[in-house]
């Protein structure tokens, strides 16, 4: 008699990787084929083989500019975290602060931040500062909003439980409220991180003499489309690395619960 239900074996990791790799490969082949077949000129759309070649051959130049972009992302995102999370925390604990800061937050969010770029040039010139500032401004909002949502998600019963243990406000925050908020905070960080990359590039378009965004503008001006695409490849790589760095941190900090919810929220961007 067969009583045991056979479990479906989980797909082998090699197979799980094969599908996305194949799909990307197919896309690249299609691109290469279309460009060659239709004889599309290289200054319109270069074939991926050329782009890959230049992305490697020009790597000293691209690396130098990438570093500049990476710094802007790291500093801007870092500032957004270091300022955004405490602000959200204060908003939860102080109603007066909440009401004072809320209109400013919303104004800052609806304002198209790119419109500030010319001002930044006047105030800070073409260096690192305007890039960091733009990155910070763009990454800030999703971090604050998700941190707020997370810190509000705590169950009142959990807080009552802590009070019945004689717990202090600080203990409630540290032991209950903050850990409850972590999955939300991380989804904010993931969105914030993807926004930060956008912020740095946009600032480099407008107000910079270094960085991959600057390379993009310059290469396009000289109709060097292969270099444009090579810079984009580098940007994609940087975006991936930063995104997965945040996700890795999430895996370390968020224990005992499925991170599906935050992955769903963060990965769409």
């Amino acid at each position, binding site marked *: 008699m067969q009583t045991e239900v056979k479990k479906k074996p989980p797909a082998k990791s090699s197979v799980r990787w094969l599908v996305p790799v194949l799909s990307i490969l197919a896309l690249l082949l299609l691109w290469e084929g279309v460009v060659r077949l239709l004889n599309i000129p290289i200054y319109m759309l270069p074939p991926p083989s050329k782009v890959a070649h230049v992305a490697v051959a020009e790597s000293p130049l691209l690396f130098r500019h990438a570093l500049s972009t990476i710094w802007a992302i790291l500093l801007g995102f870092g500032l957004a975290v270091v300022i955004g999370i405490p602000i959200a925390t204060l908003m939860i604990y102080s109603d007066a602060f909440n009401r004072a800061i809320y209109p400013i937050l919303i104004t800052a969010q609806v304002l198209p931040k790119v419109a500030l770029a010319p001002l930044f040039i006047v105030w800070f010139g073409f260096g690192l500062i305007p890039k960091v500032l733009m990155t910070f401004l763009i990454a800030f909002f999703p971090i604050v909003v998700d941190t707020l949502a997370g810190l509000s998600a705590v169950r009142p019963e959990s807080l009552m439980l802590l009070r019945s243990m004689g*717990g202090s406000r600080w203990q409630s925050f540290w032991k209950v409220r903050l850990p409850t908020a972590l999955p939300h905070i991380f989804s904010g960080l993931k969105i914030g991180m993807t926004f930060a990359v956008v912020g740095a590039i946009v600032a480099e378009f407008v107000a910079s003499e270094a960085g991959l965004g600057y390379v993009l503008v310059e290469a396009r001006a000289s109709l060097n489309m292969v270099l444009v695409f090579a810079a984009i490849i580098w940007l994609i790589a940087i975006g991936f690395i930063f995104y997965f760095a945040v996700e890795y941190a999430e895996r370390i900090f968020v224990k005992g619960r499925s991170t599906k919810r935050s992955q769903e929220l963060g990965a769409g961007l």
Partner: protein
Amino acid sequence: MDQTSASFIDIRSVAKVYQSDTGEDVPALSSVSLKIKQGEFVSLLGPSGCGKTTLMMIVAGLSAASKGEVQIEGKKIVDPYTDIGIVFQNAELLEWRTALQNILLQMEIRKLDINTYIPIAKQLLSQVGLSGFEDRYPDELSGGMKQRVALCRALVHDPDILLMDEPFGALDAMTRDQMNIDLQRIWLEKRKTAILVTHSIDEAVFLSDRVVVMTGRPASVAEDIKIDLPRPRKLGIRDSSEFNAYTGHIREMFKDLGVFTND
């Protein structure tokens, strides 16, 4: 027996009025008086929304009474009372902590030495049939298991008072029966002063020394019934005529109070 042990918890004409969002008064409790002796097991039985949770929170010092007061050992409660263990309807386990870590939260918050309490916590877990589940996260536990862990957390610091607010309300009937057996056994061992809020007439009669029947909102005490059944009680006692005399009487009371209609 001296005066203080005669009434360990003294609920004196406690009333509670909430404000609704529109500013109207919502009376939840109208003058409840109740004396509970040390080591007594008392159930609060009443229709949903009548104010049982409110009363429990006032006893724990987690919510203030609008009128009247609660005294524990002769002292008026103004702050949260901490020599207490509380079990809520939802286990309220912290999902990033294992079963054992959830229980030891008591120690962390109270700044007690954790290593001293690890064996105690493990022993409690084994008493509720959860040995080997120390390192499981709440996500990996069934509803009944979570509630057992919550019970361990409420007992690990050996409090004077155990408050349980519909702790088994979300469990299926069989799990619930088992929990009743386990709870009685643990209570017989430790003899905590226990207050259990429940919807189940059977559960209240099975577990309690006294069943306090409450009226609809705003609640007051309709009847305070002493349950004279020998302990330890077995599940089979629910088929006995003595048991059914109690439950039948309570059911009649609820009918009179308008809780059951068209019966």
